């Protein structure tokens, strides 16, 4: 068991290292100082309570959208709907908070988060139903649903929530803000908020769901072998829909938390939120392991937050971190090549050592 998890770590670690090396080489080619920039990156993401607060806050939605992607993926589905589910979750939470602002804080917050999560879940479930009953590819439906939700939300914000001449909804009541004065005080006014702890709790829940529950068992069974699941009596259609529902719930919750904790309102936007896509990358780097997702999210978040300061302290364009991120994903993607190298190179040496040990 132990050796197995070690082997599981090799690929992401090597990929991350390779990503940084590619970034460094590019910086050298274009005449920037990689060491200095990586140092700025580190300082920018972990250099003080403020930056740590920002980095942790940025992790929240990465974790939740990654978990969402992972759940669908365990059932064998490639849910690209993360951005749309996140957006509708954000929208749902803001609407709830605005319309029920008279409720006491705690109920208002819980209601808003549930409303956002549910919106994401139901939206994603549409793709699940289409897949289960009509065999429609979830890749296509979730992409289309992303755009549908983008335009619906834009329309609703503009014509319903926003005042005349404005592109944004009003801000939510201060009592619904997840970023409380206490947290602001200890993190030097960063956007760090209680949502971080909710996200960590959800990681635990998802881990529990997959390792201990009947329903999680069914999702994995269907994802690994649909015919065998059918033969075993698993209701495959129901399982597919459940998986997509949970997947969307998680991404929606991510949007809801960001809505209450970070944005406090919702605006018309030209693009789908990037975080939904970044969440997919996080899940891939973590090989869909819930605990791994926390670490992968930490890395990506640090890159994103730290990347902002790269161009502040030097004239290096901050896009360099996007290249690092993209390279990491690329290397995770070509893990097959790594496996081959690993099989030929080090592992053979290890085998010999093992044998030598046995002979002693």
């Amino acid at each position, binding site marked *: 068991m132990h050796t197995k998890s070690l082997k599981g770590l090799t690929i992401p670690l090597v990929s991350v290292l390779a990503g940084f090396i590619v970034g460094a080489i590019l910086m050298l080619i274009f005449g920037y100082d990689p060491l200095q920039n990586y140092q700025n990156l580190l300082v920018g993401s972990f250099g003080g309570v403020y930056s740590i607060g920002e980095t942790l806050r940025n992790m929240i939605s990465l974790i939740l959208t990654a978990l969402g992607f992972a759940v669908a993926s365990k059932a064998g589905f490639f849910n690209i709907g993360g951005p749309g589910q996140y957006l509708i979750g954000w929208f749902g939470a803001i609407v709830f908070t605005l319309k029920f602002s008279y409720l006491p804080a705690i109920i208002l917050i819980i209601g808003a988060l549930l409303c956002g999560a549910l919106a994401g879940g139901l939206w994603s479930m549409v793709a699940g139903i289409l897949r289960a009953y009509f065999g429609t590819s979830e890749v296509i439906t979730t992409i289309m649903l992303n755009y549908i939700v983008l335009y619906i939300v834009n329309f609703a914000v503009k014509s319903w929530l926003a005042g005349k001449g404005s592109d944004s909804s009003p801000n939510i009541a201060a009592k619904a803000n997840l970023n409380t004065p206490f947290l602001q005080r200890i993190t030097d006014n960063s956007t760090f908020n209680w949502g971080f702890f909710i996200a960590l709790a959800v990681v635990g829940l998802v881990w529990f769901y997959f390792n201990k529950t009947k329903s999680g068992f069914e999702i994995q069974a269907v994802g690994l*072998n649909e015919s065998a699941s059918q033969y075993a009596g698993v209701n495959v259609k129901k399982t597919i829909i459940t998986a997509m529902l949970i997947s969307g719930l998680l991404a929606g919750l991510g949007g809801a938390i960001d809505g209450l904790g970070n944005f406090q309102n919702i605006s018309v936007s030209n693009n789908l939120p990037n975080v939904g896509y970044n969440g997919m990358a996080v899940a891939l780097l973590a090989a869909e392991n819930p605990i791994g997702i926390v670490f992968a999210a930490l890395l990506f978040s640090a890159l994103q937050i730290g990347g902002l300061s790269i161009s502040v302290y030097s004239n290096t364009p901050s896009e360099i971190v996007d290249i690092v991120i993209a390279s990491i994903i690329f290397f995770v993607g070509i893990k097959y090549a790594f496996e081959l190298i690993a099989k030929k190179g080090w592992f053979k040496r290890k085998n010999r050592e093992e044998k030598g040990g046995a002979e002693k």
Partner: protein
Amino acid sequence: MEDYVVEMRHITKQFGSYKANNDISLQLKKGEILALLGENGAGKSTLMGMLSGLLEPTDGEILINGKSVKMDNPRNAKKLGIGMVHQHFMLIPAFSVLENIILGDEPTKATRIDYRKAANDIEKLAEKYHLDIDVNAKVRDITVGMQQRVEIMKALYRKANIFIFDEPTAALTPQEIEQLIKILRALAAEGNSVIFITHKLKEIKEVADRCVVIRMGKVVETVQVAETKEETLAEMMVGRKINFAVEKEETDKSKTVLAVSNLSVEAHALLKVKDLNLIVHSGEIVGVAGVDGNGQSELIEAITGLRKIKKGSVELKGKALQNLNARKISEAGIGCIPEDRQNVGLILPFTIAENLVLKSYHKKPASQHGLLNYKKINEMGRQLIKSFDIRSQSEKELAGDLSGGNQQKVIVAREISASPDLLIAANPTRGVDIGAIEYIHEKIIEQRNAGRGVLLISFELDEILKLSDRIVVMHEGQIVGEIDPRHTSSEELGLMMAGKAPIEQEG
């Protein structure tokens, strides 16, 4: 000193701390057919995996035509003229048979794949070796037997001169086996060398020159087949005497367990089961004999709720089951050992223990209030592993890491231990060693003796004849006759199945 085509010297293969092969040496002569015999999990497939470049030895040396070679990937092996027919098929379901055969070795014309030439070549080979395959069918639509023939064709097409056949006969009908044996002989006569793995001693006696017997990763003996009796081979392999006879008690057959009436079932828009009637009584084993592809699979799928019934009814102890879902049917008391163990019977990346509760994970004691109780699951797993002698390192080993025969034993253990009113067994001893066959047969008879019904579908005529109380012959989706196994020989049954002998209707 003789020249060997293949020489494996002191080969050891370790998975973790477990030695699947322990200092095995083996030689193959030119033009020879060498049989490899050993219990499930003895290490046969592992050894051949190293010869075909799928696995790398932990220690030892492989020589081809006297030269030491490094066999670190299948392409190398192919270049050296080694072709392997794997125990578990390596086919791509979405591709056609033709595409699967030429994959990795496509003939090209001006950078395009020359499908016409490929089809021609394959047709010639098919004619020469009398292999019946439909090159245009998609692999996902063909029967297990046909898949096996496609695998054989793949090896022939690649023009190897050293052939490895890993249990090719486990999924073939007697006629097909006969044909394969002819192919093996022809290959050897042309100067090729063949390594042949099978659990069927009859086949070894029929075709092999020498036989290497492996037990627990070690060679225990190498014998000249002509000078060795079947019983001796069996004893060498298992390490004890085997009891081939089965004991059937008198049972009360007055109750009807399964009643199938006027059943029609479609597959791929073809009517595969036509107005079929079939009854299984309590305390009775009904054997279904028939050439592969005559609707047996569809019949099983319809009874177990995996395929829609077009017309007709299925009743278990008087309760209508048609078109209920698989879970309801299994809970009503039907167990099934499916034909395709890797794609249907098991979830390979799950542990043995998880696979053993695949049909009962949703209820006590495996789970409660929606939560799985892994302590119980693993404990039950350990018990079944012990009582069914599943050779494994622990109940937490992945089913996919088990040897083929042991995978089969996992399914058999799960289905039989549930003691269903009706047990459907499709090739229950496929790929299982003689010792385990004895055990599985005992267990099936135990079910019968306890008053339960068994529907047995098997290509092994000997198995059907030995176990069944009654045999029905299935042809083109219908039951065309019924015979009494006590008064029928396997030759007669074979002819009846092929429609070449009249079937006497009984009682």
